[in-house]
């Protein structure tokens, strides 16, 4: 069964169309990167999935309508929307006790084990913690909950690279398994591309790419071409062309690898380059 099943999902705010009849499905056991420029509709899509906004079209999350069956859904779904949302006045110990008392799937022992690896002390108030420690605390809370779906919306915004790396390492090593599904949005795509299993690119409220990472590496090829062969390369209709140290880098979608290898050195493109290429192509 799909964890998320969306069909013609739409949402408009006044005249602005935030989501334009998108359809996608996310099976269990995946880590999906939802990537798009600012204002593309990522957050709106996540809000709809989390039951924080109503919508048009069909959307089922774990078989439930997220907007009307939100209270039930939240038993099995966790989210971290931004590092700054933990209440600043609360003491860490009180926050944990509260979560434990309202969440049937919260595992206190697991939380204690996770938080012991950090500097966070139970008597500290959230406002006394550094940004990185707040993120660690939030992640520890969420990881101690045996949820089926975890939604991360820019979870590492404003953190330094050490915290960011540790954040995703912990997530991958101590949390993720075949039963769980993670959706993550971030602008630092290159940092998470190695943990993703699937990619969804979204722009102007529409999905422009929905593929597994395996499909991505099969479909897309990057070729390094000397200026002399650039015209031949352009004839093969690349998605995108850019100049790096005097060489042309072309990005192709579904073009035969052997043909491309004749033009120059071929590579599997990074998600960030792919993102820029597909976005600019659609914009053109």
């Amino acid at each position: 069964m799909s964890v998320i099943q969306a069909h013609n999902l739409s949402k408009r705010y006044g005249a602005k169309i935030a989501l334009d009849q998108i359809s996608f499905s996310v099976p269990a056991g995946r880590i999906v990167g939802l990537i798009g420029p600012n204002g593309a509709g990522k957050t709106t899509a996540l809000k709809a999935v989390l039951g924080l906004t109503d919508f048009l079209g069909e959307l089922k999350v774990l078989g439930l309508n997220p907007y009307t069956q939100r209270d039930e859904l939240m038993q099995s779904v966790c989210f971290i929307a931004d590092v700054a949302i933990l209440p600043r006045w609360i003491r860490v110990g009180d926050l944990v006790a509260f979560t434990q008392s309202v969440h049937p799937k919260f595992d206190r022992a697991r939380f204690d084990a996770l938080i012991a690896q950090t500097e966070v002390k139970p008597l500290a108030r959230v406002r006394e913690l550094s940004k990185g420690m707040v993120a660690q605390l939030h992640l520890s809370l969420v990881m101690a909950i045996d949820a089926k779906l975890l939604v991360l919306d820019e979870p590492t915004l404003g953190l330094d690279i050490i915290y960011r790396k540790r954040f995703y390492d912990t997530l991958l090593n101590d949390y993720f398994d075949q039963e769980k599904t993670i959706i993550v949005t971030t602008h630092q795509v290159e940092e998470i591309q190695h943990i993703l299993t699937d990619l969804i690119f979204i722009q102007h409220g529409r999905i422009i790419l929905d593929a597994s990472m395996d499909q991505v590496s099969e479909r897309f090829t990057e070729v390094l071409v000397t200026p002399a062969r650039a015209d031949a390369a352009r004839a093969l209709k690349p998605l995108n062309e850019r100049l790096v140290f005097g060489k042309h880098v072309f990005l192709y979608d579904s073009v035969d690898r052997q043909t491309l290898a004749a033009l120059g050195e071929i590579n599997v493109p990074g998600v960030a380059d792919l993102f820029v290429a597909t976005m600019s192509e659609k914009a053109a």
Partner: protein
Amino acid sequence: MKNLLPLLKREFQEHRGGLLLTPFIAGAVLAVLLVLGLVTGASGLLKVQSTIGGEITRYAIQNNPELIAPAASKALQAFGLAAAAIINLTCAIVVFFYCLGSLYDDRKDRSILFWRSLPVSDAESVIAKVITAALVAPAIAFVATVATQMLMWLCGAVVVLVTSGSLKGMLGGNFSFFSGTVQHLIALPIHVLWVLPVVGWLMLASAFAKTKPFLWAVLPPLGIAIADSWFDVTRNLSMPSNTVFRLIGERLFDDPLPMAANLSRDAVGLIGSLVPGAVAPGIFDEALVYLKMPSLWLGALAGAAFIAFAIFLRRKSEEAY
């Protein structure tokens, strides 16, 4: 409603200063003031004074020391009542600002997103806040009041013992100093119903306002009341003039809890009833008067409607994300 207890605990943790410390600090300050007054007064009684008044007092006391205890007891009752009024007024101010922030502050600092990421319904969260404002806060104020009154009584008893050598009359026939306490306790559940429209309205403003919940809470009712007063709207609807003002005033100042504003009205009755033996039959009368008021029940109904609307708005709120 299984999450109600943790939610109430959370509200208490967040507002410990206002809910717990404020009424007890107010009570402590009042008790200290009383002690200062007692010390001045007692030293005046004990010292040989050259004034005529002092002489007369001293003479009266020396000849009738048994009059001191009843007199002190009555004075302490008045003090205790004033303490109840002031502590309840302090509590009302705390509750006012608590309500205004209750559904606004966590939207402003976006922590609502964390709370809403837990399996807790919006109705549960809002109802826990209503209970905190309407019941928990005045219940704590009640405990603070009783503690203050007991402290006052002890201080008074020491003075009486030192000046007259006896406590006879301080613990009157039926412990009359604390008779107001029972009345206060009976008033608590009625207070919940009475204050529901005010709490509901303030929380509705708190849930609705994008900024400045204070203005949203205060200006519309004030505006309507002023318009009514100027244009005689309610009189043209064959109701008494200034009905809106009257309704608001009644709601704020006729709270069944001993408040500063209705002290004058209650004080007469209460002080009279503090005479040993006279209290018991009257204790439920005040409660019955309230329970027979249609406005108590209509107000509670309006309060419930405001609260339901506030829950709806919180459910719909998405500007925080």
